[in-house]
């Protein structure tokens, strides 16, 4: 009985402890949403195929803290992105800016597409020319063909 009472009290305390956790204020939610939106645009440099938003690397946590603090300071999204690019380079952005060094990255695929389409058209045209145009059938040949087709029809089970 004593044991039961103790566990009951403990269970009650447990619930109390959970209830004590601070509820996020409205402002926190807004900051958090902006932080996630910004960090989804950024690559985590430690684990390069994860975004800063999803990474559990230490550096990613620090950078998220940095973004939160900068939001609190009233910096704009663009200013925060610039802050990151200034330190880690264009590579941190999943959508790198359009400039000389990234030109191939942005337009390379389209260039390949255009080259492919041109090659396709050229090849198809060449092949079309190589196939001899069918000569028109004479009346006699037409009759012969029709007779053969009729024969074939009859043979069908």
């Amino acid at each position, binding site marked *: 009985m004593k044991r039961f009472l103790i566990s009951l009290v403990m269970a009650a305390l447990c619930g109390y402890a959970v209830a004590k956790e601070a509820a996020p204020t409205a402002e926190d939610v807004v900051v958090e949403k902006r932080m996630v939106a910004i960090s989804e645009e950024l690559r985590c440099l*430690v684990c390069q195929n994860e975004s800063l938003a999803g990474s559990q690397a*230490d*550096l990613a946590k*620090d*950078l998220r803290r*940095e973004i939160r603090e900068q939001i609190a300071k009233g910096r704009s999204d663009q200013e925060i992105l610039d802050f990151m690019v200034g*330190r*880690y380079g264009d*590579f941190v952005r999943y959508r790198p800016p359009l400039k000389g060094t990234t030109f191939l990255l942005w337009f390379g695929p389209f260039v390949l597409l255009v080259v492919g389409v041109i090659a396709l058209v050229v090849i198809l045209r060449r092949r079309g020319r190589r196939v001899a145009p069918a000569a028109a059938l004479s009346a006699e040949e037409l009759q012969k063909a029709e007779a053969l087709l009729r024969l074939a029809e009859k043979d069908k089970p």
Partner: protein
Amino acid sequence: MNKFLLPLGIFIVLVAFLAIGLNLNPREVPSPLIGKPAPAFELPQLHKPDATFAPKDMQGKVWLLNVWASWCVSCRQEHPLLVELAKSGIVPIYGLNYKDPRDDALRWLKQFGDPYVLSIVDAEGRIGIDYGVYGVPETYVIDKAGVIRFKQIGPVTQDALEKAILPLVKELQK
């Protein structure tokens, strides 16, 4: 013959691209800080927490800033090279102790040797962010005017030291 020339040409170009791509290290992200003034800071020293160090104290000297931590495994790999370099007296090495408990850092230096003129403590990694540190160890070569000239990402190797860092240091010291 002519028929195979074009596909062969395309194939060779493709192989060349892939060969270059395979030999690049994706972890080495070029730093935008090269050619820019080293970000300012003023941090407490590891051995003398009351004293601080700032990059502007080094005006007029070429120096290395080596980011290290006791928890960093590759730091052990480069450490003997740094100790040797420090003994040669060619260039002063300053340590940035990155996100490391002080006791651990001090013990680590006692165990492996201390190549640093002094180490500064970046407990929260904030200065690391300013320097674009994303993987310890990293080493910066900073010139007399306080401009970052080179960044070694990952451990300093004998090769990097002989081919890149030391020639650059000598050039900058002129």
